[in-house]
């Protein structure tokens, strides 16, 4: 999956990929103060072609709000809401909303799911439908943070660590290896990194074609930009 992080008061963006194995579960957000967790499970293509690097995507998300005793599992097939021992299963074909005090989930049929925790945080999960007979690709999910201002400073995870404002300095913009994709040097979190200008897609408004977001791409699984290495974010279960 690819990640896009706004920097410098949303004036620019950093992007990076995380390559993982299908089936691996990555921690996306953890806030120990509010007991809120988002984990995502990776899926691969239907077939692996020889000598081609396999792309992975998020195929399932597990969202836990322990304060509300709620868990939500979002897969490309359905959305399951657990409350204690009870569970409710929505298909993506339904337009529905479920609210419990300030916690709410709204499903826009075959499009997206918005998860709101009062005025604390709002997230959107976008469903990407692929032609079901496509030889390689399969349906996948995208996760977007619309608002996270009430999550605590202790929030971490592949996305969560960037909920605090990220300050990055970019300088020495120079021609890159690919024409039209300049390189630059970025200083962030005390590291000096080579980054490459590129585009990544934001699918919130146009789930089919997406919107191009110009960003500085951090190579090698976001090395130096993310805390630690990708395997530090691997967890054993969705919840």
């Amino acid at each position: 999956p690819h990640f896009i992080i706004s920097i410098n008061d949303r004036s620019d963006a950093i992007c990076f990929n995380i390559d993982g194995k299908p089936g691996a579960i990555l921690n996306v957000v953890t806030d120990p103060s509010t007991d809120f967790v988002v984990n995502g499970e990776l899926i691969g293509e239907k077939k692996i072609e020889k000598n081609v690097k396999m792309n992975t995507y998020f195929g399932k998300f597990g969202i836990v709000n322990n304060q509300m005793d709620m868990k939500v599992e979002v897969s490309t097939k359905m959305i399951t809401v657990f409350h204690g021992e009870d569970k409710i299963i929505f298909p993506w074909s339904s337009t529905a909303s479920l609210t419990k005090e300030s916690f709410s989930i709204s499903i826009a049929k075959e499009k997206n799911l918005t998860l709101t925790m009062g005025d604390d945080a709002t997230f959107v999960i976008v469903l990407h439908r692929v032609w079901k007979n496509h030889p390689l690709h399969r349906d996948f999910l995208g996760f977007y943070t619309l608002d996270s201002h009430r999550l605590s400073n202790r929030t971490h995870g592949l996305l969560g660590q960037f909920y605090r404002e990220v300050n990055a300095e970019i300088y020495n913009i120079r021609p890159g290896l690919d024409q039209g994709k300049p390189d630059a040097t970025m200083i962030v979190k005390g590291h000096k990194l080579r980054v490459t200008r590129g585009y990544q897609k934001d699918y919130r408004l146009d789930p089919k074609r997406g919107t191009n977001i110009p960003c500085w791409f951090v190579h090698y699984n976001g090395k130096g930009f993310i805390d630690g290495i990708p395997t530090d974010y691997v967890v054993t279960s969705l919840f």
Partner: protein
Amino acid sequence: TEEHGKKRDLEIHAMKIESKVSSRFAHTVVISQVLNRANVSKEAFFEIELPKTAFITNFSMTLDGVTHVGVVKEKEVAQKQYQQAVSRGQTAGLVKVSGRKMEKFKVSVNIGPNKKVIFELTYEELLKRHLGAYEMQIRVKPQQLVNHFQIDVHIFEPQGIAFLNVDANFLTNNLTSIVKKTLTGTKAHVSFKPTLEQQRKCPDCHETILDGDFIIKYDVNRDLSAGSVQVVNGYFVHHFAPANLARIPKNVIFVIDHSGSMSGTKMRQTNEALVKILGDMDTKDHFGIIIFDDNIDTWKDTIFQATLENVFEAKKFVKTISARGGTNINDAMVKAVRLLDKAYQDKQLPERSVSMIILLTDGHPNSGESNPTRIQQNVKNVADGKYNVYCLGFGYDVNYNFLEIMALENNGVARRIYEDSDAPLQLQGFYDEVANPLLLDIEFQYPENAISESTQANFKHLFAGSEIVVAGKIVDNSLDYLRADVIAKTANENLTLQAEVKISGAENITQQQQYIFGDFTERLWAYLTIQQLLEKRISAETDEKKNLTDRILELSLKYSFVTPLTSMVVTKPEENKNDTFVADKPSEDEKVARPSFPGHSMVDSD
């Protein structure tokens, strides 16, 4: 068509039962062709049993090429003709209650020598989802071998058919293959066409095996969504029974009559059923037991959670209940309400749960407050809409009308429990219907100015295995999409579901099907409206009752439904004179026919 070596005078040449079901609305036509092979006139009978929930919509008989069609009239008008028929000594009253689920329609006509008559009866019903399936019952009883016998059922369900089962209790194992069943997504076809040989009970005899019920059960695909909305010819129908919901805990007080009249089989069956029901309770549920005769006794005087220990104790208590004394329904019901009230005050019960009182009685109140109207008022006042009251009338002597009003006034239903060997199963069957609440306070919303004359759109509960149906008229001609919102409460959350249907698209789909009768949504709407108004009328005050009566009558006449307020007048062609027959719909408060007892043989002129 020989019988004991002799030619049968009257021969059923052909019998065809054809049913078309679309979105649970079933339109059934029964056609029977009878030949008189004798040299003298003979009286031919046409006797059909149809479901009590169905409305007859048409009847005709064709004799000598002339068709005589039944006309639906206001009951009072029809009664005048009926009186004339009675005064001439003719049989009238064509429809009789027949057992638990069926009504019997019967006419006869004289056929001249070597002549034939064709009877054709049409009825319609909305199949109700019951314990997770729609059931269509066709009673087959031709009483003789039929040259051309055929049952054809076509089903169209836009949601897709999840399963389809066909069962006929008269078919032996080697004959089940005669029933042809095809199922492809949204369509199903069931066909049963036995040859003369296949109808024979034994190779050389003339008795028919065709005597029993042909039952089709099916369900549609469902998920957690706002359900299916269909629009045809300016009318919409919305079916709602979502899947994948968590059950809501319930609190139930069993109020059990153990008066003297319950002694013997009824008490034993009640105890047996209660033991089973208690065993089936979910551990999150709460329950209490009140037993009454002249006196009111409670099991431990409070409500308990249905833990294994509590259920075990309750079962022990239930086994000791024996019959004696009179019938004090009033105090028992008031006590049940008080128990629930107290449990709520003491915060014993889950915040979101369904509370209900299930009354089982076999008789009339004759102890304490014995005036039925005052009992109804008392129960209504104390329950105050907080608790559902379900009344089960056990046996033949019960005051069913009184129980029905009491239940309807308190968001419940009444049900007869027939005195038979399967009474415990009937009790459990009823309990299973209300055992698993899934949603509370369900509200259906449609664009306010776009629709009118909607059927009931607010419901207190949805139980697992059932279905809610709402229908209405579309009055906004420029409406392209009909949006339906369903707002309800689940066990823990508030739920909103939304469906949107493109009106022209929906109409096109139905037209393309060329499979069903086109105006079914309109007729379904009329049927549902009449059924709901009839139910409302049972407990309505005088002024409201008149308005309801007028509206039911108007719709029944417009759509040609034989309802409790209308009759079908059939003019019977006879030699040199016309006689009139009147088909009425029997009501549930009429006495149920007692079963005949073995040992008493009956002989009639036939």
